[in-house]
């Protein structure tokens, strides 16, 4: 049976790597439900957190093939009960509704929302939590004129993981992470004549 898996990938920080990893999924016609890239506990090493719905059989093979990519140090997959995860959401609502309707205030307290910005015309609230909790608040806020909503990708910590430091020792310490060289010439087109 298909179920939700969180794939965690430790990588070098290289241009084009996001594509290399993303096509591992699209090649098999697997939809990525959520994707987050962030630094990891180790400087210079990036961490992808990818959520998909798939069969364990498929995920297992997929993770091995991701790990095979040159710039990937290690990839793991976990079910939801093996991880601690959070998502963050922002909600923009008209301030007058908040001020006038006591019910809304109560709802926000109930769902643990915090005000990030309060302006005359609108207020931005933030909640963190799992998807179901975040989604519930949308449904509740909609009748009160929810102007804008956005939810982040999942970030997840693997419960059983001792971190990547030990693994990295296996990958040898003698080389620091490569520095990303970005294209410095992009803004300089006017200064040169080319064929």
């Amino acid at each position, binding site marked *: 049976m298909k179920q939700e898996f969180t794939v965690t990938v430790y*990588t*070098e920080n290289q*241009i*084009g790597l996001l*594509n*290399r990893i993303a*096509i591992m999924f699209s*090649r098999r016609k697997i939809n990525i439900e959520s994707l987050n890239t962030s630094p990891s506990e180790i400087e210079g090493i990036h961490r992808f957190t990818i959520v998909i719905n798939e069969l364990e059989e498929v995920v*297992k*093979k997929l993770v*091995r*093939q991701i*790990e*095979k990519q*040159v*710039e*990937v*140090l290690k990839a793991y997959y976990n079910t939801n009960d093996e991880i601690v995860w959070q998502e963050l959401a922002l909600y923009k609502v008209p301030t007058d509704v908040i001020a006038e309707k006591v019910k809304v205030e109560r709802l926000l307290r109930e769902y643990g929302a915090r005000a990030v910005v309060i302006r005359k015309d609108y207020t931005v609230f933030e909640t963190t939590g799992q998807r179901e909790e975040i989604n519930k608040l949308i449904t509740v806020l909609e009748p009160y004129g929810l102007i804008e909503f956005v939810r982040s990708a999942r970030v997840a910590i693997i419960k059983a993981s001792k971190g990547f430091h030990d693994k990295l020792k296996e*990958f*040898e310490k*003698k*080389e620091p*992470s490569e*520095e990303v*060289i970005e*294209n*410095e*010439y*992009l*803004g*300089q*087109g006017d*200064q*040169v*004549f*080319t*064929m």
Partner: protein
Amino acid sequence: MSTIEKAPAKGKTEKKPAVQSISGSVAVLEAFLAEGVSTIFGYPGGAIMPIYDALYDYQEKLRHILVRHEQGGIHAAQGYARSSGEVGVVFATSGPGATNLVTGLADAMIDSTPLVCVTGQVFAHLLGTDAFQETDVINITTPVTKWNYQVTDATEIPAVMAKAFYIARSGRPGPVLIDITKNAQLQKFDYEGYTKCDHVRSYRPAPIVRKEYITEAAKLINEAERPFVIFGQGVILGKAEKEFKAFIEKAGIPAAWTIMGLSALPSDHPLNVGMLGMHGNYGPNVLTNECDVLIAIGMRFDDRVTGRLDKYAKQAKVIHLDIDPAEVDKNVKTAVPVWGDCKETLPLLTALVEQKVYPSWLQKFKDMMKQEEEACIIPELNPTTEQMTMGEVIKVLNELTGGDAVIVTDVGQHQMVACRYAKFTQSKSNITSGGLGTMGYALPAAIGAKVGAPNRQVVAIIGDGGFQMTIQELGTIMQSEIDVKILILNNQFLGMVRQWQQLFHDKRYSFVDIASPDFVQVAKGYNIPGKSISKREELKKALTEMLNTKGAYLLEVMVGKENNVFPMVPQGCSVAEIRLK
């Protein structure tokens, strides 16, 4: 033409004085020399002109073979890599030059062929502007390269080239593409010499060998009553032919090959029981489903080898030796995975297995070969039909070459027939597009194969369809005086598709009737001598003439129009359901 003067890349330490200042283009060529490259297959164009300009001064050290199409260039580099065991090197320009490489990259990726392709790219400041001949080659080639990288700054070139060669040839080999913007090719920088790469932090070329699995595997083998070895190109890529032979000889186990593994074990070896897969031999296919221990070495259980997976070797305990951990359990569930380079793991396994023979088990293979001979092989090799068969051409070729030639095949019926019947005495002698099945592969690959193995006879066996896909490379053969023998087996059809249409589509021959030009005349236009024959009596003489002619030669042999390749495992059937007719 001017370029941007640029400061040293940020984060780099200040250079020591009195180092040589060279251009990025020269750095590419210096990298080739340091990596032992002797030949480049390529085609120039706007965005790679600085590299070609630098090459002008390196003509004595680096041989450049001008191909007629970039696809021909990359297939030639593949042929070179396969016959020599070295990395093949390709130059192409940006845009169409680079996109023409894609088929070859995909072919090299699936057949694990080590390549380094250098493509020119538009100036860095033009990236993303839809400049003339700009294409996003990095993203186009990502799924078909082991690694790729875009260079916009010449200072990166020595380290990137070193990494490219290291990645291409180490572990499970594969194609690497380096895209270099024109400004980086022109840019001068302080060159501090070339250091070969032997380590990339995030990359494990080979997994650590786990001794406990080797012990377990040896135990299974020693307890087996009907063990069966199936092997692939891993044996050749690992340069482990000797180790492989020592293993099967000590363990006494019959061994069958995938078409990529062909020639790793001499054809006449008593334990060589033949070919696996869709058009493989009868015994190896049927007995895959009767063995008790299946030892897979450097092969990846392609669907053309396994047939229907849920009926494949279910009774057997599978031991899988592979350098790529992602291959283990990918298609076939493994009882014991032996991760690692088989050059390293095979001797460890050989040490632990008992010296044995399995006469009655081996006899089973022989008995089934008898059945196959009567049903398929004799009619193919000694036909009573008026028209010639592909098999008899290969048989006479074997007699004349003694199995010492490098045989390069294209894709289709002639490929299956050649793989089934060609004899080999030494490794790296069978060059074919196995995984991708690229028609048009053989002619350019044969060019590369000859350059990679100049002292060997190279025969390209090609169908009338595939030959017309890359026929332009006759120009390369002419100009660079490449001594390849071109043997066209002409059945005036796209034969393999026709066979399937006959067997599975009620003989509805949909667009398989292909017309051909006068191939001998075409070759003549390229100054290549040739002949076309259609009578059996002429065959031996014509093949002899072909082989004895100095330089290239084209021989067209007209064969039966509607001959089929048998045995055959029909798609969706198990290997045990292989049909003899």
